[in-house]
């Protein structure tokens, strides 16, 4: 049988000692560094708000409607971005659907005009993944171009 303290410690993460917390935090930060390297994207800030739009009538019909508001910001090398989007989650008896209903991308660098092209296309199509993929490839291409020019100097 587990002692009361043992049970409490395993259920409530708030009881971790500073040492445990620090090592856990260290692991999480390595994971973050890994994802940063993998995707080429460095997410520095993220927040979300959830709004339940299910009316009582919907609940009776076993329908659930939830609106998520996400905000994230970060950078891909020298280019910083801020992305705000909304996801509408709709669930009925048969299936669950998640749809991006609004996408706003704010880019700081005005130096790259090619960027604004694919940014507005991504916003139009509400294609969040395409935005991040294109951003990564664009930056890689810029770096490659820089290296190539340096080679000829």
């Amino acid at each position, binding site marked *: 049988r587990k002692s009361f303290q043992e049970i409490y410690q395993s259920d409530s993460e708030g009881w971790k000692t500073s040492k445990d917390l620090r090592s856990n935090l260290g692991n999480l930060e390595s994971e973050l560094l890994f994802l940063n390297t*993998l995707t080429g994207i460095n997410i520095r800030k993220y927040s979300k708000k959830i709004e339940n739009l299910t009316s009582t009538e919907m609940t009776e019909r076993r329908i659930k409607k939830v609106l998520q508001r996400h905000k994230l910001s970060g950078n891909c090398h020298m280019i910083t971005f801020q992305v705000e989007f909304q996801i509408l989650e709709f669930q009925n008896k048969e299936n669950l659907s*998640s*749809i991006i209903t609004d996408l706003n991308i704010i880019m700081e660098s005005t130096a790259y005009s090619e960027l604004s092209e694919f940014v507005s296309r991504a916003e139009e199509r509400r294609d969040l993944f395409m935005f991040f993929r294109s951003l990564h490839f664009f930056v890689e291409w810029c770096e490659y171009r820089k290296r190539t020019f340096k080679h000829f100097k």
Partner: protein
Amino acid sequence: MELANTSSPEGGPGAGVLAHLERLEAESRKKFEEPQGAESALGNKIRNLRSLRDKLRAEVNRRQAGVRSAKASVEPDQTFEVSEQEVLERKRENVKSILQAYRFTGLSGKLTSRGVCVSISTAFEGNLLDSYFVDLVIQKPLRIHHHSIPVFIPLEEIAAKYLQSNIQHFLFSLCEYLNAYSGRKYQADRLQSDFAAFLAGPLQRNSLCNLLSFTYKAEPSGQSFPFCARLLYKDITRTLPTDVTVTYQGTDALSTSWEEQRASHENLFCTKPLHQVFASFARREEKLDMNLLY
């Protein structure tokens, strides 16, 4: 020592006693002016009272100082301990939520004891669809421990090309194939579920969803001819077909207007997602109905 000090609200524990002592002192001073007989006795009393007063004052000061320093030393230490834990907790929650947010880039993952488990998210026109995972073992050579990639996606081919030289390229390529498959599947599913009324027979599809065949009527209520459509997506990294044929399964030749329709449908299927083509048919139907009403 009982110290009644109801008459001195701002005093500490010794204030009542001090006041009392001072009163005594005042009294004794008065008595000092009295006949010399009792002088030495009173003088002694005064001296004793004075020294008692001084001792009490010293004690009061000592205690007050002690309380002050105790307060000062306890509070900051306690708050420092609590806030260090709090700070770490808050940091941890923050990092955890950012890790969750990576799925919105399309690629996410977790470190495992063997290496890494990468999760690929798919979407089509803002609709978030299925996710797939690839569990990689970090060894020389790099290998796939297990995965949830459907068998008709050329995983081995992609791995043979990129896995050993460039993990990023391997994953991005896989992303492309999976997103395209997800998108094609989504279009076919939507056609079957939302526009069944337009289909004159079952939708025939393969598992890769890159070969679709169906018979349809652009105007289900009207007297239009059923057309047969065959959509082939040769490039499986794309969500639009490369080859489209729309035919009329009748014996009579088509009139020019119907021939025009047939040709325009072919073009529509090449340029617009499948379910959106049918959505436009539905809108046209609505318009026709409206015209009939007025």
